[in-house]
């Protein structure tokens, strides 16, 4: 490849004064939004590098959609600064609020918002029509983008006769047709059935790789967030709870809230004791009478002993085995209990195991499996148990 490049020196652009390169497609600084007295978004700051994907993740009411709508310009924040491609579109101090249509941001809405009184071509061509692009060029570009989303033959179809998946694709085509450099997605996959959702997710990633736009997703679906994005931001009550790469956030939740939201189904609270095992930040949590669990302190603030702490671990991080034969490994918590409930899920078995007063959720293989009443032994590595301060 390198030699091929060398053979074509004319490709190299003539040096000319250029504006400073735009590092970030979007940057939010201390953005806040209150409705009356209720604060929907509080002091949110983040930035998305050009071409990357960011996901705002959180339960309903956490402020993720409001944040997205502030970027779009559909809501006007009450504080802070938002810049798109290096230019401020909202600045509370300077009194700037650029209208949404002037921001050149594509958006895919949760309901898809396909206009039922137009054809597919009319819907997708609308942004170009508004920009007074010629009829022929519009037709050309619409057909190209429809091909790209796999709806090449539906140009003249009435938009009210589309299936959910087709509406999704029309919405996507409409958001991309005017070649925005930033595209916002508000729960884009939540109205699709599971199969279609997986397929669309893959297609979205392929499209983004091909077109190179920057994307911000809003979702409450952790799988969607983890699979689509370069960065995940978990939001709670209008504030950012944690942000980072998907793997980082998933494996090292910084708060009990994030852990719970990311599917850590075993969460217990008890007194925590610092003991520097297996690492410096080791803590033992008295989860119930006579049950002490060893884990690692994950909260951002300094670890403290003698206070209530929360320990969280995933059901699939546990290993389940017959009670008589505890595995001979170190560095694990060992729990013996009785299977209270087992449900067969096809590829695995979900268990609820009674260990003293605790009810522990575990996942085990189909073979060998256990039934209700079986005595089992559960093990989990110390580093898979995350301990947080209980505020």
């Amino acid at each position, binding site marked *: 490849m390198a030699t091929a490049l060398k053979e074509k020196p004319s490709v190299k652009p003539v040096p000319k004064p250029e504006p400073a390169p735009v590092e970030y497609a979007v940057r939010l600084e201390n953005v806040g939004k209150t409705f009356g007295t209720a604060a929907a978004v509080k002091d949110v700051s983040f930035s998305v590098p050009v071409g990357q994907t960011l996901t705002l993740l959180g339960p309903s009411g956490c402020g993720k959609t409001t944040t997205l709508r502030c970027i*779009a*310009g*559909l809501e*006007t924040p009450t504080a802070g600064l938002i810049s*798109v*491609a290096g*230019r*401020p579109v909202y*600045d509370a101090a*300077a*009194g*700037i*609020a*650029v*209208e*949404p*249509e*002037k*921001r*050149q*941001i*594509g*958006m895919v*809405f*949760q*309901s898809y*918002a396909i*206009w*039922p*009184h137009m054809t597919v071509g009319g819907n997708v061509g*609308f*942004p170009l029509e*508004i*920009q007074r692009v010629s009829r022929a060029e519009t037709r050309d570009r619409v057909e190209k983008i429809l091909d790209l989303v796999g709806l090449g033959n539906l140009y003249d179809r009435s938009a*009210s006769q589309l299936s959910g998946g087709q509406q999704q694709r029309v*919405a996507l085509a*409409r*958001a991309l047709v*005017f*070649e*925005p*450099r930033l595209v*916002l997605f508000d729960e884009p996959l939540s109205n699709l059935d599971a199969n279609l959702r997986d397929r669309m997710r893959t297609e979205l990633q392929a499209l983004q790789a091909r*077109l*190179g*736009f920057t994307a911000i997703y809003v979702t409450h679906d952790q799988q969607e967030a983890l699979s689509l994005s370069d960065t995940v931001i978990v939001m709670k009550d209008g504030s950012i709870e944690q942000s980072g790469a998907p793997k980082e956030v998933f494996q090292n939740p910084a708060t009990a809230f994030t852990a719970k939201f990311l599917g850590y189904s075993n969460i217990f609270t008890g007194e925590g004791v610092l003991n520097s095992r297996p690492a410096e930040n080791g803590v033992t949590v008295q989860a119930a009478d006579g049950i002490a669990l060893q884990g690692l302190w994950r909260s951002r603030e300094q670890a403290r002993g003698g206070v209530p702490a929360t320990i969280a671990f995933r059901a699939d991080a546990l290993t389940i085995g017959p009670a008589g034969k505890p595995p001979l490994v170190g560095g694990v918590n060992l729990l013996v209990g009785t299977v209270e409930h087992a449900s067969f899920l096809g590829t695995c078995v979900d268990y609820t195991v009674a260990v003293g007063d605790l009810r522990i959720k575990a996942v085990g293989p189909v073979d060998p499996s256990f039934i209700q009443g079986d005595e089992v032994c559960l093990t989990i590595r110390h580093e898979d148990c995350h301990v947080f301060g209980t505020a």
Partner: protein
Amino acid sequence: MTAVASPLPHSPRPIAHWGVIAAIYAVLAVTVIYPICTIFAESFLRAEGGFLHAFTEVFSDRDVLDALGNTVLTSLISVLIAAVLGVTLAWLVARTDMPFKRVLDPLNMIPFYLSSVVGALSWQIISSPKTGLLNQLLVHLFGPGAVLSIYSVGGIALVLGLFYTPYVYLFTLGSLQSMDPSLEEASRMSGASILKTALRVTLPLSAPAILSACLLVFVTCAGIFGVPMVLGIPGQVNTLSTLIFRSVNDYPADYATAAILSLSLFVFTAVLIGLQVWLLRGKAFTTVTGKGYRPAALKLGPWRWAGFAVNMVYIVLIMAPFLALLMVSLQDAWTGGFEWSRLTLANYHKVLFVEDTAKRGLYNSMIISTVGATLGVAVCVVIALVVNRTKLPGRPGVSVLSTMPVAVPGIVLGVGFLMAFVGTPLYGTIWLIMLAYIVHYLPTGVRNIDSLVQAVSRELDESARMSGATWRQAMRRIVVPLIAPGLISTWLLLFVTFIREVSASMMLFTFGTETMSIALIRIMEYEPYGVSGAFGVLQTLLLLTCVVLIRMLSNFGLSARASK
């Protein structure tokens, strides 16, 4: 693709725009606030010896007290008739297996669109002492002397009650249809009979809707002018509204009394409308839920035919007088029975081509109603879009101002417009009458279009904004086309209302600006029944045409929604 993206246009704008909202406030101030304030000003400033003195003076007058009593009495009887009929019919249509209810439902609504003045004229014809068909029948059945006098409090109340039954019917029907049917089913499963369930569960649950409709009918009847004018004046029965009219039109004109009476009627209406709004707070009875469930109809057994008979009685009471009117209008002279030898279209020829007042009335009403309905819809669309689809400051105030005229009876609004605009060039033109119509029915229009706009998902126009459309482009290209069928319905509704309007017109017309209803009332004074009958029939046909169009549109709208 990213390479060709054009640079981001940089057009920071100040966060607030006051222009639009200021313009709306200015228009509403001149057309809504100013006329109402004029009545206050006239009452307080013109009154000799101070307001209190003048007020006591007016309300110790024998005639005023009589009129007050008549007003309350006619309104009460009207409400009683409308409530009993409206609730019964609504229950039969919404909850039972009454035969032909799909046909009866629209028929029950017809009086809603017709002119009660024409209704009064028809009743006058069928109950005239010697030649009236109804009185002939009564004499035949019960012997001489059994004659219904329509020129009485009872007569006025009967016509009003029959004409306002659809209001109670509509409110109750809405409430019953939005009620969860399992509430009634639970009552049946607990052992209650159909009747007991209706009385103990269904009715109490609909009580706020019914009560609210009754209040609305009560205030409307208390403020109504046309029917008391046609039926009351011959029988020397005055109501407050006819008294207001007479104090302005009798010689010498007594504007102070008119203002004080108008003010009293306004305050009375406003208080009751306030109560009605409070009763309905937080409830939208016209909500169309996505759920297509149709509650199972109660099986009435043989009684369903009794239900059918009850409904038919109402329809006959409405239709028969109009048929009599049609018969009379087709005869060259009315002798108490239809004769083929007297069949003629001469009366129609006369009102269409000869009789000047009738010709003017028809012409003026067509202009006023066409232009007025168009302007009215346009104003209401702007208000509804600004209130629902912007974040401009002062929007709640726009809502309040645009619903205020609902508390002003037509006659009072007419007095206000008269006093406010009598010195301006607008006075004596049809445009002032049109303006009064638009203001009076602004709440109807805004409410209709408001619900249309609210039914359009916000994401539909937000996605247009994100596609680069300005607010105006998004409204014009997305929201307005989507609500177009509803806009046409609203236009037709305003057109119908304007065609038959009496009260405000009566205060504002001058020679040459008579509207259709005014022309009808005038020619009733000096032409035989056949001629006024023909004019009434023409108006009714015009209104019925609009009803059919409205029905067709709403069916079209529903089927379009269902196919989605």
